[in-house]
């Protein structure tokens, strides 16, 4: 499928981080492969008491480019593609900027591998369940069957559309093959519809909860209910339009513009902009500070959880 040349062709300009196809690139590939094998071997030999430091070091190295790129001073309007650095400080800034793309690519690849690990784990657990005929093993067969069918037809459909449909004929449904129909049935007909159905069930729980649990038992609950009521009424365009028109007319007739403040959408706007948004912003600040503190602890290896 010519994937290898396609991957090599991804480089558009050469930098410290990237090489155009040629002897140097192939040399780096061989070196990288050997280094990777050596690293895997070395990691497997690391004593248990040293493993924490390996994880801490990798975590620090993974976070370093982003932190450095954010903190390192760069010219305000730097054009990294057409300009050249004027001094050492700018050179480091340009170097870090060039690092963003490869680091991002590495992150994406690692995330891809994590998906792979997830697939492997899922299949292993359910195969074991079927093999040992554990409780509800029938559901595991359903899962594995769906897994194989979805992956098989999905991949084949992608392959046909990407590499075998030179004329774009498959854009028209009449030209579809069995594989295309099967993929469409599995993805659109089953998976997506079940996804929608699962989500729509929330409506039933919301109604039931509104009836049983949303009770005016305290001042706080009353304030919350009044706010929710105004915001819900604001979503009902027919009501807000009718009420708003009546207020407009009344304000016009009495020449009293103060009355315009009593429109439902004015109330709702006020609630949103004066109460809701500042509250959310305050929560965001709190969450942000917490995330920053936790991020720093993880990055610097101060957090013991997760790496021990």
């Amino acid at each position: 499928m010519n994937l290898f040349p396609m991957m090599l062709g991804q480089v558009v300009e050469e930098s410290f981080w990237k090489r155009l196809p040629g002897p140097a690139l192939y040399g780096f590939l061989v070196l990288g492969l050997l280094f990777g094998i050596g690293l895997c071997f070395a990691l497997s030999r690391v004593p248990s008491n040293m493993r924490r430091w390996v994880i801490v070091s990798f975590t620090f190295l993974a976070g370093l480019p982003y932190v450095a790129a954010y903190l390192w001073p760069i010219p305000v309007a730097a054009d990294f593609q057409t300009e050249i650095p004027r001094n050492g400080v700018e050179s480091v800034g340009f170097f870090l900027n060039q690092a963003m793309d490869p680091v991002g690519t590495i992150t994406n690849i690692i995330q891809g591998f994590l998906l792979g690990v997830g697939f492997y784990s899922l299949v292993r657990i359910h195969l074991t369940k079927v093999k040992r005929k554990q409780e509800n093993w029938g559901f595991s067969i359903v899962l594995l069957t769906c897994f194989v069918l979805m992956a098989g037809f999905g991949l084949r459909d992608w392959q046909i559309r990407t590499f075998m449909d030179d004329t774009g004929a498959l854009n028209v449904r009449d030209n579809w093959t069995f594989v295309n129909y099967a993929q469409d049935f599995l993805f659109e007909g089953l998976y997506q519809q079940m996804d929608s159905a699962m989500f729509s069930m929330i409506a039933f729980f919301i109604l039931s909860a509104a009836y049983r649990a949303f009770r005016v038992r305290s001042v706080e609950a009353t304030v919350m209910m009044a706010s929710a009521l105004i915001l819900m009424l604001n979503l009902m365009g027919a009501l807000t339009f009718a009420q708003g028109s009546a207020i407009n007319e009344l304000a016009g007739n009495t020449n009293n513009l103060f009355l315009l403040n009593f429109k439902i959408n004015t109330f709702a706007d006020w609630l949103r902009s004066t109460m809701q948004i500042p509250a959310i912003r305050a929560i965001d600040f709190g969450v942000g500070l917490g995330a920053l503190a936790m991020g720093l602890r993880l990055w610097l290896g101060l957090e013991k959880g997760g790496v021990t």
Partner: protein
Amino acid sequence: MTIWEKMQKIDRRILYGILVVCVCIGLFFPSTIRTDPDPSSKSFYAAVQKLPKGSTIIVQTDWTNSTRGESLGHFENLMRLLMNGEHKFVFYSAADPAAPQVARTVLARIVAERKSQGLREYKVGEDYVDLGFFPNAEATNTSMGANLKAAWAGRKSKTPSGTEIDIFKTPVLANVNRIEDCQMMIVITASQSIDIAVQRLAQKIDITALVTGVVGPTVLPFYQSDQIKGVAVGLKGVYDIEYLMEYGIDDVKIEGQPYATAGKEGPVPKTEIGTRFSRGRQYYGTLHVALTLLILAVVMGNVAMFAARRRKGEKV
């Protein structure tokens, strides 16, 4: 047992049945309801309509069918707006592997719809580019801001003739070297991916958003601080955009009389061609029914509680 006590212990299946019946009836009678669109929806519509004809837009589509009630309408409206403005666009997802396929299906339907209306047919590789899925939103948006060409390097696009071409050689991205060369980024999302886009890219490109009702409140602070130029929230947002496509914005005058203009969008024209009312109109009546039911449920539940307490002689 009194009626109030019975109401307190009503079987949930009765509530479910009432919901199903009320919601289903509304779906069969779509109607155009007069409304006053939200200011954030107006800002979104105005921002998109004021783009120069043939602009290049980045569309980050991070939704799947679990939120189709809102996001599908948002995506369809966006496609119609972009196609009416003859804008070129790239679309990708940075949140869900299934999202690009969902977007492709909807896009194909809108293209077919416009073709049946005798309008220009949008073609892959010529008018739009499909970039697929990027697994890590944080890294992807950061890379896009640092170097767009490198972030999307090596991606190929189909052409109308069926061949493949580097995306930067397509008419869509031929003149794009960095993200600032695109006129707008539009994020359609049912998750927090809009937060990442704003954090990483808001200083480089104008961002607007189409979000679900659940995500909406967390996005409004960005709108208030002008970090995003407009946002349509939830099903009301879908209907707002359709309503604005039908009627346009005329904040300057109401019934011919001068009106306050501070903070208003001013006159923005309606769309002249293609479908205007669609999903929003279909579902908006149902939203009224569902909300009325919800309000009634809350009121009835409380009335029953107070009545039962009073009967028992408890302090209300």
